[in-house]
């Protein structure tokens, strides 16, 4: 824009560097402290370097049912990921055409991001409690007997997570289809492809890298979600909820080890997704003549 670097540039660059340090510094500190020696505490200095706290975590020593919470979070995250991709993709396709209530549906999805999570969570909890009461008093004996609650990880919990991941999924779909070159579809149709064939063999392969991005988004949003889960998850907590509960009681670096491990999973998932996207892009570049180069 202008020639040479102005003094303002250097001032702003320093500010930016400070901002990045502010973002990363604390995280790096707990990453280091999670390798604290067995006799070390929650703060510096390091009393030796060890994997002691990771071992304790692995054996479940000191902390209740971390392995179970880990498994539950992983299962829920995967289901949320699949549903987020499927439902947002389908809805994204629908929004390219006109349908009754499109405006209202978009409004509701955005509202779901803005309404405080605790309110949504409370609403879902109330809904399931009322459903429980109704089933116990009016339901057929087969259901009513022995029913404790309909609330659970894959009923109310799953729903709560979807109200958080789907709006993001839809917004990303809008971005994808805004950039999508419709001439590919027209060409496919002109060549006699059915709508399904067009979707399967033309549209999906082109947008696949971005769709993987939606899945990645869905998984990590679910993996870290607490606020919406707080009232709606049922009896057994997810991993971030256990972590939150631990903040008030734990006085050893256990919690840092758990933090480092959880972050590790997030980064692994991201790396896998980005790797898949890169491979797909490379394949598109090699095989698909000029396809996909929107």
């Amino acid at each position, binding site marked *: 824009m202008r020639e040479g670097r102005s003094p303002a540039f250097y001032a702003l660059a320093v500010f930016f560097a400070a901002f990045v340090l502010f973002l990363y510094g604390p995280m790096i500190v707990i990453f280091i402290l999670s390798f604290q020696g067995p006799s070390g505490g929650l703060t510096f200095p390091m009393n030796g370097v060890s994997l002691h706290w990771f071992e304790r975590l692995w054996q479940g020593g000191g902390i209740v049912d971390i392995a179970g919470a880990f498994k539950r979070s992983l299962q829920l995250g995967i289901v949320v990921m699949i549903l987020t991709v499927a439902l947002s993709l*389908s809805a994204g396709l629908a*929004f390219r055409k006109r349908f009754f209530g499109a405006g209202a549906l978009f409004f509701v999805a955005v509202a779901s991001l803005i309404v*405080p999570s605790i*309110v949504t969570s409370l609403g879902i909890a109330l809904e399931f409690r009322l459903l429980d009461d109704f089933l116990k008093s009016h339901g057929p004996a087969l259901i009513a007997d022995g029913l404790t609650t309909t609330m659970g990880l894959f009923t109310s919990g799953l729903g709560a997570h979807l*109200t958080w991941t789907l709006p993001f999924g839809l917004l990303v779909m809008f971005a994808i289809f805004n950039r999508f070159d419709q001439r590919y579809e027209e060409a496919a149709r002109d060549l006699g492809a059915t709508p399904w064939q067009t979707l399967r063999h033309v549209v999906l392969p082109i947008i696949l890298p971005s769709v993987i991005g939606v899945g990645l988004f869905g998984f990590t949003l679910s993996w*870290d979600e607490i606020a919406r889960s707080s009232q709606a998850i049922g009896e057994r907590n997810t991993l971030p909820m256990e972590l*939150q509960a631990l903040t008030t009681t734990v006085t050893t670096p256990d919690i840092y080890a758990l933090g480092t491990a959880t972050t590790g999973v997030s980064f692994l998932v991201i790396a896998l997704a980005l790797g898949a996207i890169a491979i797909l892009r490379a394949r598109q570049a090699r095989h698909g003549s000029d396809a996909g180069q929107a």
Partner: protein
Amino acid sequence: MSTSRSQIESPAVPAWLQAAPFALVFLVFFVLPLVFVVIVSFWDYNDYEMLPAFTTRSYVESFEGCWTQLPDLCTILKTYVSTAKFCFIVWAATLAIGFTVAYFLAFHVRSITTQMVLFLLCTIPFWTSNVIRMISWIPLLGRNGLVNQLLMNAHLTATPLEWLLYSPFSVALAFVHLFTFFMVVPIFNSMMRIDRTLIEAAYDSGASAWQTLWSVVVPLCKPGIVIGSIFVVTIVMGDFITFGVMGGQQIASAGKVVETRLDALQFPPAAANAVILLGVTLLIIVALNRIVDVRKEL
């Protein structure tokens, strides 16, 4: 929402059917739950259960003393005033930092690749849980934390500072740490849309850097600023986790009132407080929307 509307003939599946599963999720897990919150807020309750009988008891109790205690503030007003203060502080800090960062990225970083790399650098911390990002302040701000060690070694203070952690300070700091990026993204987006010739024109017409910033860039960034503000303000308004973890469970907030009631299994008062919280949040959004029509900008 500027999805191209060109018609696609003979769809295999009608559009409404494609949107139906998505819509159903929001009906069952968002719209209906909100309806239940409103209904239950008008129910009665006892120590064990909620009683489906119409009463305004929960609201009356929530606002108890608000009139008689004047000019002193009742509990709920105190809580909302305190939450609003946090909103304002966090909003001002995230706006100042977010605008500066976005300005640097948009106007001073010249290559698009560098821009993207720096942008990604800022997003990476978002891939970890907020709780982990919160607890990562403990070794820094705690009584024996790095900051206190440094201050004491430099003989700036004789005893460790107690207000660094589990205090209003740490709550505000955590909010800024967690959510400044929500301010950066929309402002950066607005800045990237600004036609660079406008800025050239301002310089050519003799405007100083400050005048250009204030009279050209800031007004054109308004939509981004408003969207970012809505994000940050509504998050702080409804938050109970950051207040809980960073405030050592000692600081009240609008969102935490709901949680406290829920911990006591008092659903109707919790619902009433949720309705009040929702009302206040919507008022703030409407007020911010008066400044800029956000829907036009999406």
